[in-house]
């Protein structure tokens, strides 16, 4: 569900609506978005256009960091940008963040070209870099206030926004400490808060979860999902696939500067994949599998359960209903590796072959 909203209108009604969205802990009810207010002019619909990248390339000297990237990220979705180290994720994000000029191709962020209209993009885009830089002698609060001022918010709005964001990312106790005393994870939170200061409709998060402890990761996941549910476009890069699996609703695979085509991704959906099955009575499971006609060479056992090779979701569903019908007490039936990881690894396999 997406929702059209203009950042400026957000600032003007700094009252109840925003406070409701930006307080911790996140109540599940906050994820449910309201219908768009009727008074939003139609031209502002363009602001929720998300990200469109077509045939973008960029090289540094002789190094082709990005060769050909083509993808879209929709408003309301969390799009994962997946690729191994050095695959061009950060370069691509830098181009989306109006910092780097592409050699070729075209980019639209929130409806604007970052090369020709950087200011329009910057007003609507929040970027959390993979480098944790900050003004080391300034306090957390001052950092957020000044970022707000740099985004042309007035003094009072910047101050309230800073307080809200400090609460949102849980840095209350460190609000008045200079940023140089922050730990890595705390700097990550500050960096996230900084990217949200101007209430952007597009969020670019470069490795947002690295350095976060498990509970902070959960907070981040909930927050990112909520921001997406509010109608924002979110692009998250990472090479830690398990963490993306939990929040991404769409994925872009980048390898050696090239995004995988939809065809290739579709092909991975039907490739053989292991599913892990657990039963209340594990000793009966091999017999049950034989009964439903699974050849023994497709079955293996690891410490966590029984692994069965299955091609595609339809196959898996058929296997599950057969097993249940045969009377096996199945307690868990799930892919052994996450969707993203399976696709990613499968793409790499086909790349190499």
């Amino acid at each position, binding site marked *: 569900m997406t929702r059209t909203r203009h950042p400026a209108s957000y600032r003007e009604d700094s009252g109840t609506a925003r406070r409701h969205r930006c307080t911790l802990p996140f109540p599940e009810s906050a994820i449910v978005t309201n219908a768009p207010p009727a008074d939003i002019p139609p031209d502002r619909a363009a602001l929720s256009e998300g990200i469109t990248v077509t045939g973008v390339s960029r090289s*540094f*000297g002789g190094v082709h960091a990005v060769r050909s990237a083509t993808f879209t990220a929709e408003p309301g979705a969390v799009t994962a940008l997946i690729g191994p180290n050095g695959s061009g994720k950060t370069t691509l994000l*830098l*181009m989306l*963040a*109006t*910092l*780097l*000029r592409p050699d070729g191709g075209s980019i639209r962020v929130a409806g604007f070209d*970052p*090369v020709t209209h*950087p*200011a329009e993009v*910057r*007003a609507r*885009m929040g*970027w959390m*870099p*993979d*480098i*944790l*830089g*900050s*003004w*080391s*002698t*300034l306090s957390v609060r*001052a950092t957020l206030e*000044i*970022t707000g*001022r*740099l*985004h*042309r918010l007035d003094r009072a709005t910047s101050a309230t926004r800073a307080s809200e964001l400090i609460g949102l990312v849980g840095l209350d106790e460190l609000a008045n400490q200079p940023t140089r005393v922050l730990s890595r994870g705390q700097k990550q939170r500050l*960096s996230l808060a*900084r990217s949200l200061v*101007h209430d952007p409709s597009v969020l670019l998060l470069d490795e947002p979860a690295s350095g976060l402890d498990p509970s902070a990761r959960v907070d981040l996941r909930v927050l990112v999902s909520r921001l997406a549910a509010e109608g924002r476009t979110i692009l998250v890069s990472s090479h830690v696939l398990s963490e993306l699996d939990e929040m991404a609703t769409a994925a872009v695979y980048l390898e050696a500067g090239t995004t995988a085509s939809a065809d290739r991704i579709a092909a991975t959906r039907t490739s053989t994949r292991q599913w892990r099955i657990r039963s209340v009575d594990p000793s009966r499971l091999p017999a049950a599998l034989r009964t439903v006609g699974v050849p023994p060479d497709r079955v293996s056992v690891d410490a966590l359960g029984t692994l069965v090779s299955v091609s595609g979701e339809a196959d898996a569903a058929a296997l599950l209903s057969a097993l249940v019908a045969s009377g096996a007490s199945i307690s868990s039936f799930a892919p052994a590796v996450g969707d993203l990881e399976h696709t990613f690894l499968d793409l790499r396999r086909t790349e190499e072959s």
Partner: protein
Amino acid sequence: MSTFLGGLGTVLGLELRQRVRGVAWYVLLGTFALVVAGATLMLWLSISYANTGGGYLFSTIIFLVLLLGTLVAPALSGNAINGDRDAGALATTQVTLVSTGQLVLGKFLAAWTAALAFLVVALPFLIFSVALGAVAADTIVTAVIVLAIELGVVAALGVGLSGVIPRPLFSVVTTYLAVAALSIGTLIVFTLGGAATQSPMKTTYIGIDYEAGTDFGAGPQFDGPPPCLDPMITTSTQPRYDYYWGVLAANPYLVLADAAAGSFDRNGNPTDLFGAIASGVRSAQIPPDLDVTIDECAMYDAKGMGEYETPEQVYDRTVPTWFVGLASHVLLGAGALLWGTSRTRTPARKLPKGSRIA
């Protein structure tokens, strides 16, 4: 326009809070105050004997501020942009609505403000020197304005070079080298150039035949004009500083001196360091006389030995150069800022080798 100024003000405030303000900064200012206080005390004691007013004290403090300012400003400004990039704090600023022009200009204004703080610290001592008397109002105004502009030029050079050179250490060093080239390099070029370019000089000496006079124990006496000896011609060489005086126009200290000079006492002697330096430097504009005749014989009855020019006469018959120097400095600073801005502009087309954008 007001959005431009608003963004500029935010960057200026951020820079002053982030880069300048701190304990070390106040210690530096305090140390400078002590140095100026010491210099003021000693100069005051020395001029109280001569009773020449506060001109020398005033000009000395102004030069001290220029010295300290040009020593500190490169360190404060020379890593303004690449230092932020190294700390990962540049790109996060660039994705806000602040423009590259506002960013660079704000950093420049912050570095300039920091250098001007030395002038503020020196203010009580300047007021004291003016209170001693004999400091002309136009000298005060000109000296302070030119000093402020020169400090701004150093700040602009530092900020500009920090946008051009990727490594903070090298941009700081390059800024120092640029300041040294102007302050000391010009003097070296002037001195070596003059010494290396020498012209032959013919000196004709016509002496008096003292043997012909009558001696009553108090030196030879003559009836009428003394008999002359045959002219004696010697050749030598003379350094041609007059070819190189233009180089000195680029020296910030001399720009300051030349601009603020003009105050002389009734004997034609300068009443401050500005005039003393300016008339000395300007005398280099006068080409040396390469065919000198010293006719001691003809001048025997004359009152003086040749004509002596006072510093004021030298100052008056030579051309001022300060505005050429000052204009070239301002162009240099502005050029550095523009260059730095164009290299910092985003979306970036090309990156300096080995630099990360963030």
